[in-house]
């Protein structure tokens, strides 16, 4: 180590050159235009050509859809008499209630609004910065929200267990918001007020038990308050429109990921039976068109269940779509798992993490993060694929839109409803894709 003397003295004389601020490119809008659209002869020509083409293509569409469109009329004939070559949006507007709620009775539609609203409210805290353990909020939503929502949507007597779980769901939502308010006020969370009391009896995990105690108290309270509360029964036969589309796709989007993860892990499992089962499921489902799976679900599923069980078409379809989506998701997840270096497994094992801990804390977070674009892509296509359920007679958004054309007032009107639901689908899918990009940016920040 005697060779160190020379470089050290040199270092003492070393004066770093002053740093400069980074080069900032500011052009403004006109600058941008000049640079990207009108830079050079060919570029300008191309820009003009493209814009001309766009104008030629869009002009008739805009004229049809906006300028000459009819917004209020009571029948197709009236539309045509007002403006023969404009869009007849009046039909879509007249049918809008059906497009959104299907044939769900008008006076009961508040239940759908409330249910969907609760779902949104439940998920809102995920966007808050100060909230920790978001995964718990998400998991609780996945597990408990369906019971609360179905209690609202279905109405009627759904049995005691369902009622209890729905109460817990509502209690959790109340607790969540109380805690959020307390956190933002800088106070202790609700459950923590029980901690010292519980610590006297059970020293371990008193924090968790504190939260559970409060949840229990709140659940009992809510179950008691709503004990005489009853809702009118609404059969799933009258569910339809956007509502049904959201139910089917929401359910399968949420279930696809866990099913996919389990199948993907099963496929890599050391246990032969688990592995064979996973491979068989994945390959079987993936080699059959979704329509076939849907038809089979309606015709074949009853064979697998006892006769006494009352299956409804919607449940069968949802199960089928979940399995179908899960099998595809499994392959996406597997791709993510394969990208994880072996060293991560070694490291996890070397600090003593077992299989499930390793998967939950080390492998899956990384694998899923890497696969977000692919996962969201499959969510988006799943959302669109649910339109296939119209083929087996579920009145989703698609079939509702098609139905307009056989309404005697609007007979033969095909284009407008399809354009309208296309716009709806676009809004949903584009939102999902934007959200996924935000999520991706957020999760890869600083890495």
């Amino acid at each position: 180590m005697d060779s160190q003397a020379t470089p050290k003295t040199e270092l003492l004389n070393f004066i770093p050159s002053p740093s400069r601020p980074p080069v900032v490119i500011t052009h403004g809008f006109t600058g941008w235009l000049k640079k990207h659209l009108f830079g050079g002869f060919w570029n300008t020509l191309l820009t003009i050509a493209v814009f001309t083409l766009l104008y030629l293509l869009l002009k008739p569409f805009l004229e049809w859809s906006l300028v000459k469109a009819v917004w209020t009329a009571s029948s197709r004939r009236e539309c045509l008499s007002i403006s023969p070559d404009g869009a007849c949006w009046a039909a879509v507007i007249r049918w809008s209630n059906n497009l959104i709620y299907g044939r769900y009775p008008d006076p009961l539609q508040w239940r759908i609004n409330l249910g969907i609203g609760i779902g949104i409210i439940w998920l809102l805290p995920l966007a808050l910065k100060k909230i920790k353990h978001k995964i718990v909020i998400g998991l609780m939503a996945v597990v408990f929200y369906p019971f609360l929502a179905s209690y609202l949507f279905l109405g009627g007597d759904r049995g005691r267990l369902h009622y209890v779980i729905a109460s817990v769901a509502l209690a959790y939502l109340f607790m969540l918001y109380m805690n959020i308010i307390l956190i933002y006020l800088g106070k202790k969370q609700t459950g923590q007020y029980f901690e010292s009391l519980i610590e006297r009896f059970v020293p371990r995990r008193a924090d968790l038990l504190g939260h559970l105690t409060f949840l229990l108290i709140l659940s009992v309270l809510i179950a008691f308050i709503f004990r005489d509360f009853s809702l009118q029964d609404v059969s799933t036969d009258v569910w339809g429109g956007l509502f049904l589309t959201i139910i089917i796709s929401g359910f399968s989007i949420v279930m696809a990921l866990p099913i996919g993860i389990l199948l993907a892990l099963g496929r890599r499992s050391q246990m032969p039976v688990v592995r064979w089962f996973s491979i068989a499921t994945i390959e079987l489902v993936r080699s059959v068109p979704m329509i076939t799976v849907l038809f089979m679900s309606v015709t074949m599923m009853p064979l697998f269940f006892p006769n006494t069980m009352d299956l409804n078409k919607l449940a069968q379809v949802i199960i089928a779509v979940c399995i179908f989506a899960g099998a595809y998701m499994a392959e996406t997840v597997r791709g993510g798992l394969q990208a994880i270096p072996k060293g991560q497994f070694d490291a996890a094992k070397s600090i003593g993490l077992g299989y499930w801990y390793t998967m939950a804390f080390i492998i899956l977070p990384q694998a899923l993060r890497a696969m977000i674009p692919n996962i969201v892509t499959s969510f988006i296509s799943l959302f669109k694929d649910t339109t296939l359920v119209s083929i087996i007679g579920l009145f989703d958004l698609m079939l509702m839109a098609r139905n307009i054309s056989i309404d005697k007032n609007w007979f033969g009107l095909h284009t407008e409803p399809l354009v309208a639901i296309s716009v709806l689908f676009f809004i949903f899918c584009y939102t999902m894709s934007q959200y996924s990009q935000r999520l991706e940016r957020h999760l890869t920040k600083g890495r």
Partner: protein
Amino acid sequence: MILNRESVDRSSEKKGIAKARTAIEITGLNKWFGELHVLKDVSLSVSEKEIIVICGPSGSGKSTFIRCINHLENYQEGTVSIFGEKLESNKKSAVLIRNNVGMLFQNFNLFPHLTILQNCTLGPIWLRKIPESESIKQSMALLDRVGIAALASKYPGQISGGQQQRVAIARSLAMEPRIMLFDEPTSALDPEMIKEVLDVMIDLAESGMTMMCVTHEMQFAHQVADRVIFMADGEIVEIGPPDQVLKNPKWDRTSQFLQHVLSHKS
């Protein structure tokens, strides 16, 4: 910077363990990768607080050997015992390994999606069931000891290789092991970072940790090793104090290899 010498001493006293107790006992270890016989009847006994350095040519089975000790690899024949308890592939052995053996890798293998601090606290919180706040305190102390407490909230991708390896040391220490295994911990590092990692390892050695270290840092071997092992073709061909193995090797292979390593270094 004296590492947890006291805690090690206390724990051994508490359990009434004699000073020269055996930490690792390996007998007749045989391992095949398919047809390839990678470890041939390897036996070794390591006493507590002993520092063993393993060297040898590439492909001689050093990594495989050291990975067998904490069951990262399974083997077809032979036994490995830790503090007198024979390891099997069951839950009990897994807990025994988890509580006693830590390991460092050539590529650090930090968890890239977790912060430095989270890397360290994950094991203690979920496996040793220590409350989060306490675990953070303990991990911060460890990070301070390896000299990177200031980087606790950064992600592994944001720090240098030497710093990553020191985090990996802290992460292992957070599980309070009594044996540490090292598989070429410095060979993926730039020269100027090797020293900062070796310094921490020397400290560990002085604190009374039992260590088995695959490395080609001969300086380090001279300074801290109690015994040096030379492996070739899946066998221990030479074993003894560093002066003997490194200065006057009995075997030609050893001296050839040492010459090669030393000439490569300078």
